[in-house]
């Protein structure tokens, strides 16, 4: 289980700048000057942040966040 990492992406065509992900998980998401979300870095997230990231995805009104599991 320790080898599992998460890959998080924000679909820029779906994101409308609701700002929910940035409010919930600022360690993973940020917003640009227009208020639209993007993933910090390459989107690989350590599993200690899994609960937070899944919570952010579950609160996106536009269903713009995708989480996939990366297995080493």
């Amino acid at each position: 289980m320790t080898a599992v990492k998460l890959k998080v992406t924000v679909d820029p065509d779906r994101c409308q700048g609701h700002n929910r992900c940035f409010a919930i998980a600022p360690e993973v998401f940020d917003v640009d000057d227009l208020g639209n979300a993007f993933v910090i870095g390459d989107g690989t997230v350590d599993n200690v942040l899994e609960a937070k990231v899944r919570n952010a995805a579950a609160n996106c009104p536009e269903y713009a966040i995708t989480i996939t599991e990366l297995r080493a």
Partner: protein
Amino acid sequence: MTGRQPPVTDWKSDFDHTDPTWVSDPYPIWADLRAHCPVAHSGRYGGTWLPTTHELVSEVAYDTEHFTSRAVVVDNLRPTELDLPAPIGLAPPITSDPPFHAVARRMLLPAFAPRKIASLEPMVRKLCGELLDATSGRSEFDAAVDYTQHIPVGVIVGMLGFPLEDADIFRRFITQVLEKVDLPGEERLDMFMQGEIEAYLNDQIESHRAHPRDDLTSFLLEAEIDGNKLAIEHVRGTMILLMVAGIDTTWSAIGASLWHLGSHPEDRRKLASDISLWPTAIEEFLRAYAPVTMGRLVIDDFDFHGHRMLKDDWVLLPFPSANRDETVFPDAGRVLLDRQENRHAAFGLGIHRCLGSNLARMELTVALKEWMARYPEFELSDPDAVTWSGGQVRGPRSLPVRILA
């Protein structure tokens, strides 16, 4: 503002969003429609449709091919009577369609992005503190009249750089636009043509041209689209948008949340004793008491899930009903301050997501926190005396409270 139309006897075929029953408690009406008639039609206002489930409301919100935003307030005027200046619309970008919409919106978005809005928080906190100071020593007062109604108007007037003492002009104008929708078309047209607000905005624009300042009015006068300054109609239209969309709405959200806390002592005490609840509680208030029902017009005759929609038919988009859809929100009728999964659509869905959502959320949070810090124990002094606004923005307009202990 209500009761001018014949009373509604059948919500499936003759609904009216100004009917006193809808105004006082629309939730049972919407619940029944979601279950038994998810696309209702009424002959009122020249023909109006009402999708009520989360799925259908989303579908219309995302469909800019069949539905236009050039008019968003459902009333007795037929669209042609307003002679809308395409493609801008009366209040860009809320009344704009693609592709102009994206251009007008992009210009405004930086002014409402999260960090920019966070810098306004001290100003809002000070405003709320002063309003609460003015209530000190009174055991009973009207929280809508003495507190909530002054907050968003003060913020918007401040952001535009207008004199704070002119706030009443805006409140009057907004009430006319948003609540007197059941006036006959001719009377409504006369109201818009009086020109009081236009003359006022022109004076403010002239004053800002002569003396530019660090505010949104000077920002709009300096802004460019494709190397050109904005047309004066665009500047005035955007100012009107900020007033109409930024004042009644947030006033309603703050008031409805206070109504909830004043009538649900357990929730009030939970929130007072556990600060970790605030982020989810704010989103839950936004879900359960979303103030705004949007409007669209049908662009051309077409078939929508077996319903023949006709060109220029109105469509009411009740985001508050979508937010109470049990298929998306378990236990949707209950307010759960710690609701973890909450994809509410209080700020709309798709390209017209409320431009001011970060501002509204900040104002709501600050206004409630300041209130709760000052008056953690309060109740509604006369629940039957609470009145709610009619039309497409729902919130308490009178909210008598009693301060306890």
